[in-house]
């Protein structure tokens, strides 16, 4: 029961990943693309947590920790680049 619900949740996550990919391509400016990038990284953190569940190894969650940190920094660097004050 719990497993089936979690599988559906994983499927919805994949769908939202693809939907945010659409924003990356439509509408031109860099800021829009960065927002799409940000959303994709946030979804990927959830996806990593789901993979942790599927594979049954709890140690994989370490990767999600590092992921959260690095994605945050990437977005901040692009924001500073846009402000011309890197």
């Amino acid at each position, binding site marked *: 029961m719990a497993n089936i619900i979690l599988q559906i949740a994983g499927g919805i996550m994949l769908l939202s990943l693809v939907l945010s990919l659409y924003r990356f391509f439509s509408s031109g400016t860099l800021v829009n693309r960065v927002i799409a990038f940000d959303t994709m990284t946030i979804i990927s953190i959830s996806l990593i947590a789901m993979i942790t569940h599927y594979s049954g190894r709890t140690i994989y969650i*370490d*990767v999600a920790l*590092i992921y959260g940190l*690095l994605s945050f920094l990437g977005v*901040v660097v692009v924001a500073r680049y846009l402000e*011309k*004050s890197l």
Partner: protein
Amino acid sequence: MIRNFFIILIIAGLAGVFVSLFWEFGASDTLTPLATHYANNGAAEVGAPNLVTSIVVTYRGLDTLGEVTILFLVAAIISFFLKVEKKGQKMAPPRVSSEIILTASKLLVPVVLVLGIYVFVNGHLTPGGGFQGGAIIATAFVLLLMANPRFELNHRIIAAVESVSGMAFVLVGVLGILLAGGFLDNKILPLGHFGKLFSAGAIPIIYSLVGLKVGSELSNILSNFQDVQKDEL
């Protein structure tokens, strides 16, 4: 036109080679003999649950030494290239960053440092190790840079940390020759209880040294790409 034709020809040829090489490929169900040996005896010989770590640090320790040397060379060449800045260019002062990122960086830098130290000290138990931990420590430096674009790293401290950890790395390796089986052998310290933090001989020490060295080298590379103008400060 003829150039494009050649490019497509080369790529098609390479694709053909790939297809013919891996047409029959399927993931095997058994390990290769060497990997089987590592898997079955690695835990007893090295005492580290993470087999990747035991391969990187102990079985293939010399490769890691070479890799750290390559990183050092890269940092040296980049600083050699980019050090000669043109003077007299007037830059507009960068936009002052907002208070949120200032406070957040003050809050986050120690946390990031703790996270990096956790990653490389626990390299033999959980995924992670010196290289990842070093990258995270360099990230803390990037965070400081985000808060204050004119922040400058103290190059003397960085150089000191780098050389001391490099020397200690080689020293641990030589101690391995003297006291145990060979270069970078981890049995100079007792193997300890399997799965505990203080176990697996010298692996936590070696990985911490690698982490410090990689972290300082990556920070060095990053600070070379940052443009600080000396006369402005």
